[in-house]
């Protein structure tokens, strides 16, 4: 089966954006998928599996991230990552 490449835009809703804990949770979840995952903000594209790279985006609350997944489990990956972002990373203080 040919690899699928899917792109979706997510808006960060949690209070402090993609800081240490959210970036850790995002990269951990992304790393569980085989697909290549990239995150773009303001023209900068970084790997969604790297906590360090995600943090360098300085993505604060309200930022829009363009997330691209490429691979057999691309759809699943995007869905899971979007859920995580929508749930504000399950961080009680940032709901």
């Amino acid at each position, binding site marked *: 089966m040919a690899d699928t490449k899917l792109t979706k835009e997510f808006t960060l809703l949690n209070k*402090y954006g993609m800081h*240490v804990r959210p970036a*850790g949770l995002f*990269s*951990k979840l992304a790393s569980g998928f085989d697909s290549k995952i990239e995150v773009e903000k303001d023209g900068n594209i970084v790997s969604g599996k*790297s906590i*360090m790279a995600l943090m360098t985006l*300085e993505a604060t609350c309200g930022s829009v991230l363009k997330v691209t997944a490429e691979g057999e489990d691309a759809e699943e990956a995007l869905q899971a990552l979007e859920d995580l972002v929508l749930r504000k990373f399950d961080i009680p203080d940032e*709901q």
Partner: protein
Amino acid sequence: MRTFAGISTSNGFVRGPVFLYRGQGELPIVEYVVENGKEEEELLRLRRAREEAKKDVEGLIKVLEDRGNEESKIFESHLMFLDDPWLQELTEKRIRVDRLNAEAAVKKVIAEQRAIFARMNDEYFKERVRDIDDVERRLLTSLSGFERTLKFELKAPSIIVADDLTPSETVQLDRKFVLGIATNGGSKTSHVALLARALAIPAVTGLKDITEHVHPGEEVLLDGTNGLVTIRPTKEALEKFDELLNRQRTLLEEDKDNKVAGSLKDGGEILLYANIHPGVPVEGLKEVGARGVGLYRSEYLWLNREGVPSEEDQFEAYSEAARIASSLSEKGSITIRALDIGGDKLVRGISKTENNPFLGNRSIRYLLTHREVMKTQLRAILRASAYGDVWMMYPMVSCVEELREAALVMEEVKRELTEEGKSFNKNIKVGAMIEVPSAAINAEAICRHVDFVSIGTNDLIQYTMAADRSNEDVAHLYQPTNPAVLKLIKMTIDAAKKVGIPVGVCGESAADPIMGVLWVAMGVDMLSMSGTYIPLMSRMFKNLSRAELDDYAATIAALPDDSSAEEILAACRKWMEKAIPKLDDLLLL
């Protein structure tokens, strides 16, 4: 004398000797070029150091988790840094291509990242560089075989003066010896700031270069409320500060004397309860005088996990919370709020995307359309009612039908439990949250179908004004003192009184010295708030009598109905300042 102005980070005043923490200093790292052909060895050394560092972090997480410390979560992210594929690629390239030794490679790569953070604009983001420092240090100490444990040698109560503290340093502070914290860097949101507030330790951050001006052991004056640190004070400054310390001491002693939090000066009492949620350790609720738990946010059992919590998971959490609540006072009841999801609270695997989530399938609506989820939760709550004075309430009630339907489900669950021989309180009190305008308008009917009501001011204001306060363009319309909002609250209180059931407030405004007192003046029997605010609200009530509260309510009720929210708020402040001449003192802490 010299006074340094920084950022007020945690309120309170303290005078004490300086413990100057110079950080762990630069590690004496040697940099060299690796011999040709020895690159693989160097890579192996890096990998081993990484594993060792990960073990250290895992150990720290375990210790913090055992203490029930939420900060363990931050170190989970540190593990991700150590495993970061991109950082690994960059570092390994330095070793392979530039033939740098592992230590030098790590330093170079981290320095590049640090430079990116230095250029950021967002304060909160800039602060996160401390986590990167922390991770770098762990790698470098493992690599070079330096002492890996770190201990603050605090031998006596001191004010910590430091450049800044990494998360690892912060969690290792011996808390009983920390009088106050003053740092060059940091802000209200740095790791050490969050900790200081949680422990009620006065703190000032953003002092720029204070470490360059203080001597270890010398006495300094720290004013966390105004964000000031004074070194070598003049006699006058010292006297003035001692006066503040006295005021603070009096306040704290009076707080302690408040054996019953919420007493009025004429002996009456207001019930002050605490809001808690599962997964967050409950400390000091008894000390602040919480009567019980007025709001237990059960939805956090769903938010903090993979998958749905089972009946046993829920039963365990509720019965444990019930035990904690009953240890607080004779009236140590606990009000468990049924699953409050939807709107901006989304749960993995449960929540669907809705066009208009705030007007969507939220809370009681969700429960009634998902009977299995509802029955499981009711079973767990009922079973927990055998372990304390458990009350339960439904959030987002908008009409009587919902309560009728919920009552049928409750009967069914009670029948099942009886058949199974499980013990529970057959007369468990069931309440409704009043947070939808329709419920407030028809409050009397709602009240006849429940044992108590609790007003959720956050949602009631937002739905009444049709304004989302997180949207800065309309946030000004989120008005707690809008005459329409006050009318709805008054209607709810009057309805509850007429039917003869208790009415409380559990929204954020319950902890606001102006608004919380107004709700009580208007007739609310109990307020529920985050435990940290109970001493403040207690102080307010201790300075007021029932007659004064009645006057407060009458004064505000007499304002014309075309007053703006701002005018009403100003009238509230004015009344309060007149009634409590030392209001400023009460708000000191």
